[in-house]
């Protein structure tokens, strides 16, 4: 994308007004998207994203400028803009970009560019047909397939020079069931840090059938009861509970401003001893993984909570300065248009000893959640909320009927100690995007089946 000589000159220009660190992030991404509605392709688009973002640090200030004018003049002008916000004597006069070796842990077998459009259409067609076949009550099926080849180059004034290619493939499907006046729509998205071989491990048809079957079942669902009750959360999908209830509050963005509920709590028991929470960007080919983070550091496995004790935060290079701590290889950004900051990759709770069926059998009355929609959190006040897309009532230790329209709310600090059973069936789910200060980034979350002894369930009954 850029040669080293030009990159060095751009970085030096960015530092010319006294910055003590400069970084350049160049991106060249190619994306394609196909959508199918009612068994027919109804959308096809291609996208080329290309540009450079430049960051300059001076103590605990940073400036940022981006452009997609990649001419030498355009880049130098952008470096000048980033430098303009800094004033002082020039501190760094030489940069020698050398780079470091790293192994590609996320090999791609089939480059999406080599796949004929017809093959992609076939995946959608089969999935769509499978959903329609599931039930005559399926009124409408929509599906989409997208892939992205993201080439990044990260260079900084410490001499770092890293180039990486991230290939991601994503599939989504939604099915709408109808019976008289009743309608219910349910969808699922799955993604991997993989090429087209993604579809060798992910069965698009099975996913479509699951959505169709679930949507039909939800047609008969009653309104979820409201109030405080035990909530059992199914494996895989429930990971979003931790993503919102404590993950965001462990990111440096607000910690560095002393505005997170978890400031000053390192070493303290913040969760039930059954809780060990990890964020790991290294897991091979998972949707939320990458070889290096968007500051060019190798991703790693960060233990956030161990047996209920807060062990670590997620920290990027800039906030590391403010916090006097080390960066954790988890600085991320949606694109060159947004400066990176600490974000989650693949966040999951380690397995416990309980059998999933005994968790349900031990719950007299409560809700078993099997699919979440969106969720969000206010990391300062600690209030979170999640949409429940699919759930069942637990009565006398048995799943009795599907319930709809539920919302879970609460405070992370309140529910983490209330996790009283953790299953042995860890599963990790990927395909969603997490939106925060540095934009939307692909993330996975995971967990075994678990029970929160008491949560606030919002419903209509």
């Amino acid at each position: 994308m850029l040669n080293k000589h030009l990159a060095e000159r751009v970085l030096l220009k960015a530092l010319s007004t006294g910055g003590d660190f400069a970084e350049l992030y160049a991106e060249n991404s190619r994306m394609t998207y196909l959508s199918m509605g009612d068994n027919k392709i109804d959308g096809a688009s291609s996208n080329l994203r290309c540009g450079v973002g430049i960051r300059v640090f001076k103590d605990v200030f940073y400036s940022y400028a981006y452009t997609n004018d990649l001419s030498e003049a355009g880049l130098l002008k952008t470096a000048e803009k980033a430098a303009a916000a800094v004033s002082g004597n020039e501190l760094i006069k030489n940069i020698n970009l050398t780079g470091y070796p790293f192994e590609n842990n996320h090999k791609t077998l089939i480059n999406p560019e080599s796949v004929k459009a017809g093959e992609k259409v076939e995946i959608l067609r089969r999935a769509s047909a499978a959903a329609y076949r599931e039930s005559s009550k399926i009124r409408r099926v929509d599906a989409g397939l997208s892939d992205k080849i993201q080439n990044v180059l990260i260079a900084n004034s410490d001499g770092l020079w890293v180039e990486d290619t991230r290939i991601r493939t994503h599939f989504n499907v939604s099915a709408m069931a109808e019976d008289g006046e009743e309608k219910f729509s349910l969808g699922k998205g799955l993604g991997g840090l993989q090429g087209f071989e993604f579809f060798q491990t992910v069965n698009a048809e099975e996913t479509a059938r699951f959505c169709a079957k679930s949507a039909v079942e939800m047609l008969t669902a009653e309104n979820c009861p409201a109030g405080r009750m035990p909530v059992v959360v199914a494996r895989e999908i429930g990971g979003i509970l931790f993503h919102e209830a404590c993950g965001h509050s462990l990111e440096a963005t607000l910690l560095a401003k002393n505005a997170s509920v978890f400031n000053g709590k390192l070493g303290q028991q913040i969760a039930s001893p059954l809780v060990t929470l990890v964020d790991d960007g290294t897991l091979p080919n998972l949707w939320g993984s990458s070889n290096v983070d968007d500051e060019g550091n190798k991703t790693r496995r960060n233990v956030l909570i161990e047996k209920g004790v807060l062990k670590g935060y997620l920290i990027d290079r800039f906030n590391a300065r403010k916090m006097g701590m080390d960066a954790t290889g988890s600085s991320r950004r949606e694109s060159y248009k947004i400066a990176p900051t600490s974000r989650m990759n693949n966040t999951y709770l380690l397995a416990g000893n309980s059998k999933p069926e005994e968790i349900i059998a031990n719950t007299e009355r409560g809700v078993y959640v099997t699919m979440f929609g969106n969720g969000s959190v206010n990391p300062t006040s600690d209030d979170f909320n999640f949409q429940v897309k699919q759930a069942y009532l637990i009565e006398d230790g048995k799943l009795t009927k599907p319930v709809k329209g539920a919302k879970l709310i609460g405070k992370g600090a309140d529910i983490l100690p209330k996790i009283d059973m953790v299953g042995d069936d860890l599963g990790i789910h990927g395909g969603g995007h997490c939106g925060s200060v540095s934009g939307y980034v692909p993330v996975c979350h995971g967990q075994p089946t678990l029970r929160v002894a008491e949560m606030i369930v919002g419903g209509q009954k």
Partner: protein
Amino acid sequence: MNIEAFIDRLFEYAEARGLKEYQVSYAKNENSDIQVFNQEIFKQSDNTLMVLSFAVRVNGKIGRFTTERFDIEDVKRVVDEAVANAEIMECDEEFFFYDGAGNYPMVVKHRPQVERLEKFDKIAFLKRLEKETYVADKRVNKVISTQYYSSLSQAIMRNSLGLNLKDETIRAGAYVYASAQNGSEVKTYGDGVCFDKEEDFNSKRLAEKVVKKLVSRLGAENTFSRKAPVVFENKVFASILGSIYGMFSSYAVDTGKSKLAGKIGELIASPKVSIIDNPWLENGFATSAFDSEGVPTRYKELVKDGVLQGFLYGLSMAHKHHTQSTGNGTGGLGSRVFNFYLKNGTCPREELLRKLGDGVYIDKLNGLSGSISLVSGNFSMGAEGYRVTDGKLGAYLNQFTISGNIYDVLKDIEEIGDDLDFDCSPLGSPSVLVKNITVANN
């Protein structure tokens, strides 16, 4: 390379390939922001972005390629891949470009006071704003962020049928977000200005407005679970409108994703309700003479006195239903709205609360995005607000959930306030009183 030259090359190549209908949409955006934290500049940015989308019509279908790179070597690929994208389309709907005929209205868009802002010391403003937020009440424990931003977008749309349109959008604003503490209780609140009025330049006014709301959230109580009447504060109901405009989309109606199918002429809301899409609103945030397909925009009441008047159409869905585009096209099957609002009512705030009697006044929603299913109408979301007893605002309530069915909510609107506000956005609403919302916390 020069963007005009790039567009010329695209058109030359498209013509040489024998293509008849093609279109370019191009936007240049320059934006900047400044953040102050602890009386120091924390972040400053200054950016330029150019994006071009090339669309081509082949056999009645449109394919697209969007690019941020304008190298001469890309011309062939952009055109060829857009053609390939058009050729792969299978749906029954036909797609069209617009030829630019028809009358484009003269409109007055929102515009911040640009000349004044050029001389305005933004950093000093943010420093004052931060300080004044702390000073306004000793319970303010953290001003989490203060930010100033501005942007200038220039867009052009040109096609082979003769369409040639230009547009310019300017934005500027400032924002403060803070927390207050009372013992172990922490609440947050933020608000902003968009520099189109004199008072927006007064940092103290913004600081005091935010802090007043912020500290009133302290000492919060839990509510209990029951069905209750609710007042949605104007900007909260405006955000709900922003989540449900899709129910008026002709495509959503066609695909069974809106429950309004077949209901034109029927009462779908309380007779007090009129819902308007007004692209011509003076100083509106989404004011525009044309839609994303270049079709002239129109003023429309989608719901008049509770009765559904019609749906939103772009060129493709209009053709399918043998009607005209309503100037709400996106270029695809869906539709967009412009300044979208609930018509102002006449009930003053005190009267609205008196009519509410005992219930809840909601001034914040959590997790609204994706919470309302237009297919079924069911929703359930996190909310915050005040207890109302005997028509008077009482204690703030800890986060609770509200749930119901949005199609019922429209019918259950009992009264509409006189406080229509757009709050620096294209979405507007007065406060509304709705009966029978399920509120849960306990």
